[in-house]
């Protein structure tokens, strides 16, 4: 730690390395937006209630507002900017457009990153609070998607479109 209370760290974001000199109190969310210029990730409540700040760390979704950037050195961070391949949108991004999965769009980066992480969890056979049993073989149903996405709020109320978009992007791949 240097005299001005900052630390140097290196973050791996969307496949690129970023050297930072920041205070330990800087959240991963603020590091992305204010220090690296990746403003796709949004600050909503800044207290873990809304999910607008959701990013993926080693493929797992987290709230970047609760994450101190300094804790995430050496981890592979993926933000909404890292999901597309060149100009080709991620299947879920395209499905959000197709199904009107947003109105104002502020929650959308968090919704999309969260859904990508959620689908990984589903494929990994993680049960949920609405899964009837703990033994596996869950159906990729509306009920499961709504429960598993409950950490992401949409104040415009685009939930129906969001659930439809998630079905479109992932149904074919979802194990039955």
């Amino acid at each position, binding site marked *: *730690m240097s005299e001005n*209370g900052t*630390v140097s760290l290196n973050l791996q974001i969307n496949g690129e390395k970023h050297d930072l000199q920041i*205070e*330990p*109190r800087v*959240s991963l969310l603020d590091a992305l937006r204010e220090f690296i210029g990746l403003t796709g990730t949004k600050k909503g409540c*800044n*207290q*873990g209630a809304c*999910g607008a700040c*959701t990013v993926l760390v080693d493929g*797992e*979704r*987290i*709230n970047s507002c*609760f*994450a*101190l950037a*300094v*804790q995430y050195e050496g981890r592979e961070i993926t933000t909404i900017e890292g999901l597309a391949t060149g100009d080709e949108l991620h299947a879920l991004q395209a499905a959000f457009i197709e199904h009107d999965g947003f109105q104002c769009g502020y929650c959308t980066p968090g919704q999309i990153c*969260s859904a990508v*992480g*959620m689908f990984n*969890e589903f494929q*990994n*056979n*993680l*049960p*949920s*609070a609405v*899964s009837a049993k*703990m*033994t596996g073989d869950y159906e990729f149903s509306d009920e499961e998607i*709504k*429960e*598993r*996405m*409950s*950490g*992401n709020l949409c104040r415009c109320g685009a939930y129906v479109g969001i659930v439809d978009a998630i079905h479109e992007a992932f149904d074919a791949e979802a194990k039955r």
Partner: protein
Amino acid sequence: MKNFTYQRAESSESAINLIAGNAGAKFLGGGTNLVDLMRENIEQPDALVDVTRLSSEIEETADGGIRIGAAAKNTAVANHQLIRQRFPVLSQAILFGASGQIRNMATAGGNLLQRTRCYYFYDEAAKCNKRAPDSGCEAIGGFNRIHAILGTSDSCIATHPSDMCVALAALDAKILVEGANGKREIAFNDFHKLPENTPNIETDLKDGELITAIEIPKTDFAKNSLYRKVRDRASYAFALVSVAAIVETENDLIKNVRIALGGVAHKPWRATDAENFLTEKTATEENFRSATEAELKAAKGFGHNDFKIELAKRTIVSALKELAENGGGK
């Protein structure tokens, strides 16, 4: 948020050494509660020691129980094959708490040390004996719909917010801790404290002690267990009342029963009066109801939360009925 120094511990020994003698230092897990409290200035540590890279292993113990490394993420605990099979109540309790994102960050050790979500505790402008000892309690006589009905004191009526801990209370877990003076184990039901007149003291942990693991003893009948949670929204909300229950019956006679309650007290509430009433009795709704009357006899409402007394009784009865119908594992 006040700035602080940050160090990452590579072993439990180094974590304990890094924090020793520094009263302003704290261990940092996933940060889902501590970082929030720091942002609100409720917690103001001047040094954080990150313990998220210590043991997160989940393994079977020699006696057929499970040991969970304190740094294990909530999701990893909920999704562990042995826990899903042998202790479904624990998987369910975790999955009924928080959101997917938070469960991926929050550690098992940190979950034990979550602090209350009492509005007055969070509001620096309010009187709160937990945050500022001897300043008073504005929840008593204030908006107390989410507050406790059991084990309260004139100092504090806050509840413990964890779901995971309610299941661990029912499972008779042990908490393994390590400090400058060596290692020790704490029985789960001795770990969290009732408020009495020192609600600022929430656990049995001594200064500088680190939680290293949670152990659940082999409990064959815990296969027939469940977690039932009643809350204001269908998902992602704290419990108004929750029940972790385990039942084993034999020819309709209750051989073993464990009941713990969440959302009703300053600690996960083990319902021993109800358990004692039910043991060796027939598994009937009438007996279940009588057991809840015994347990909630001492309950006290504070106005807005009076409804929790009846709600707790009904939630226990519904959980026990379902488990008894499942045959109690026999």
